């Protein structure tokens, strides 16, 4: 390989320092800039990062965010595949039902098993109702609003270069994301379960429909936690001056992910709305 300039070294094994680093290596380091920078979490600006420009570091970080989103897309595709596959196969007709007991298990515990010392009646096939698609769209709407707020905040920051004005916007987006998070928890609690018994144990179980909904909403919940973390971070960083009018790149990185979460929420809501029950 022909190179114009290169570091030349001719160090033999005998010259190694005890820790495996040559004296020449240390010299080379001392002459050079510091290590690090270019890291996903903001080492690139005041941390130095090999004297690279913020634009270069930003480009690299943006690629990383896109790749992480790509990985997240694969997981979403897997989740939707799971939902559609289970619905399509409808194993033994149990997509939305299961052999168990209607009603709340406490009624069985209190009235039959413990109080009266009796035994459970024979189980029957119990069906569950589909979750509310409207509620799903509500959560999606709230998520999309939070994404819109952060996007508007970014645009305003880039236009006005006023980092202080960005603080309340980031805080508002965070609060809206937290609302979405709480709504998702409410939604999770509404997923229908069925009281079943097996091997002398009684417990609440999910049909394959409820299971697929559970994991989709669980994934959404995880996303909301990440958004809340990122939103809080942006707020604190902007208030501390780490994000400034000239250093707005991280806001864009966060916005990319935020928008993706909103889009994924729309996709899930659309699938659940249009492909719900078997018939």
């Amino acid at each position, binding site marked *: *390989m022909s190179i114009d300039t*290169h570091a030349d070294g001719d160090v033999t094994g005998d010259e190694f320092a005890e820790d495996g680093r040559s004296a020449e290596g240390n010299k080379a*380091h001392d002459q050079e800039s510091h290590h690090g920078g270019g890291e996903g979490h903001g080492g690139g600006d005041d941390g130095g990062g*090999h004297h690279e420009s913020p634009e270069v570091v930003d480009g690299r970080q943006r690629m990383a965010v896109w790749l992480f989103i790509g990985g997240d897309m694969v997981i979403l595709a897997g989740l939707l595949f799971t939902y559609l596959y289970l619905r399509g196969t409808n*194993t033994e007709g149990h997509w939305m039902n299961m052999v168990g007991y209607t009603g709340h298990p406490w009624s069985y515990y209190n009235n039959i098993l413990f109080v009266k010392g009796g035994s459970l009646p024979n189980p029957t096939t119990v069906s569950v109702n589909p979750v509310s698609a409207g509620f799903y769209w509500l959560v999606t709407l709230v998520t999309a609003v939070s994404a819109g707020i952060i996007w508007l905040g970014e645009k305003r920051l880039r236009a006005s270069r006023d980092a202080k004005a960005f603080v309340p916007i980031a805080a508002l987006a965070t609060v809206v994301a937290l609302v979405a998070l709480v709504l998702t928890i409410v939604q999770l609690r509404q997923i229908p379960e069925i009281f079943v018994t097996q091997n002398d144990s009684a417990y609440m179980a999910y049909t394959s429909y409820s299971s697929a909904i559970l994991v989709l909403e669980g994934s959404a919940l995880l996303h909301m936690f990440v958004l809340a973390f990122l939103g809080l971070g942006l707020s604190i960083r902007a208030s501390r001056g780490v994000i400034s009018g000239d250093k707005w790149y991280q806001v864009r990185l966060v916005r990319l992910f935020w928008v993706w979460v909103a889009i994924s929420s729309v996709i899930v809501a659309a699938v659940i709305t249009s492909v719900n029950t078997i018939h």
Partner: protein
Amino acid sequence: MTTTLEHTAVEEESKGGGLARHQNAGTAVACGVLFAFLFWLVARKTLDPTGEAFNDQVTTLLGCGWIIGFWFGIGAFNGPMRWLLGRDHTRADDLYYAGHNQGRARYWKYTTDHKVVGVQYIIVTMGLLGVGGMLAMAIRTELIMPGNHFVNQQVYNAFISLHGMIMILALIVAIAGPWANFVMPIMIGARDMAFPRLNALSLWTLVGAASLLVSVAAVGGLTMGWVVLAPITDQNGVGMDLFALAIVVFAVSSTVGGVNVVCTILTMRTKGMTLERVPIFVWGAITTSALALYAFPFFLLVEVLQLLDRNVATSFFVSGGGGTGWLQANLFWLMGHPEVYVILTPAVAVCFEIAAVMSRKPVFSYRTAVAAMVGLSGLSILVWAHHMFTSGWAPTLGGPFMVTTEIISIPTGLFFLVLIGTLWRGHVWMKLPTIWMFGFIANFIIGGITGIYLSDIPIDNQLHGTMFVTAHFHYIFVGSVLFAAVAALAFWFPKVTGRFLDEFLGRISFWLVFIGVQVTFLAMFVSGLRGMPRRVSSYSVIFDHTNLITTIGAYIIMSGMLVLLGAIIKSWGHGEPSGPNPWHANSLEWMVPTPPPLENFDVMPVITEDPYNFREEMVRS
């Protein structure tokens, strides 16, 4: 006399690191144990002990506690928390995290220097191979003759499962881990990886996952093979929970690592280092990383679903609630077959690299080599159902999947074309890396051709689940990938240590392992062809001769690997000094001092030619 500037630098450096100054592998283990205990305690106090899934829930939470504590103890949360609080790393912090002036202690810390991470990967890989190898020997010892001698079927199955998964993990990182970290950034003229802290995160997360995986043995093991097909997983004890959690954590590690490698290659190449000028190993690193980004999220997903089925009574894979085991099989093999090429591609790329340097010739048809690696990766995501030919799932899709699987032999054939074309009429320097590379070629031919048979549905119907399949993939993994991994180690060992890997011991090791592989797996082919099933601890007497031969072969392999271990230990401290460029290669990693300094280059190089433009006759010694 100390200048004011130097004094300031030392003073500044001494302030760096913050909490990381007190964190290392010891604190990671201590915090892991502490958190695991706390999670266990809380789980025992708060969960319903009469619940069907009580033991699973407690075990899963214990595992979560371990990994969270481990991350906390090693310092993985420092970066995110500092980002959250707006306290970004200073220059002194970055220096500290890079392990500057920390001696050997930096190998036990959350060090960001890519070369340290590369060495850490070497150690982790050797550890995993050691544990997996011991399990292999236990398996072969049990199979030395018909009947149960040392362990019962359950324990034997636990050995099989752990051996399989540990070896898969080890081989996934065996080449990409050490060398995509240690040499790849230097090869492309970068000062470090794109995201040094993510690099450390990837490594230590792997350590956390591996420890979880090994701990499966302590809670009753795993008795259904490493593919853990549902719904039989329901019958396993709590070992399944730790296993699934280990895979989830591993998927996080590989995703983070994959993102880092891809970003590094695409955005950090030095001036003039076009994608057509990068050493061929770099293409191997990027294709394997990109493929991992596609494959391992499926691995994560399928194990999350397993955990949910076991812990909160969902019905993904349980037919009573509308689930199906075929969902698990599909999701698993969507990952499972690309994973084979995640393992294989860097091995092939290493052999291209060694063939070119050692024969003093350019890589034959560089673009074909690249196209073969990219094509193989692309095709690998379209073949997953060939693992399910005999399962009864979608028989009408058998034909198309047979075709896609057989098409894979085209890019695989191109690998051989490129390798042989590169070596053809070259003045091949038969040093240690070269002979291990030739071992790769020989074994890969056998492993590859037997794979073509297995892709054919009628033959697969006969041979599925037999020792023939086991022999086939061991020729790929042991005979090919492991040989390439040792070739890579021998090739870049001088760059890591400044010393040659002991040539004499290395050759003894080669011949022992090479002969051992033939003895072991050719005999295993015969067992399979005669109908011996996999995963049984006892067998009919008609298989006794071939099993005895296989076990003898396994012991020969083990002795060869022990000799190799001895060679590594001896050479690391007292090997023959090699100088910075012992192979007279042209790529950048050989142009920097040995060992490379902290940021690799004093002055950033500008590339004007490809790395295989050999003008001078190699000086051979």
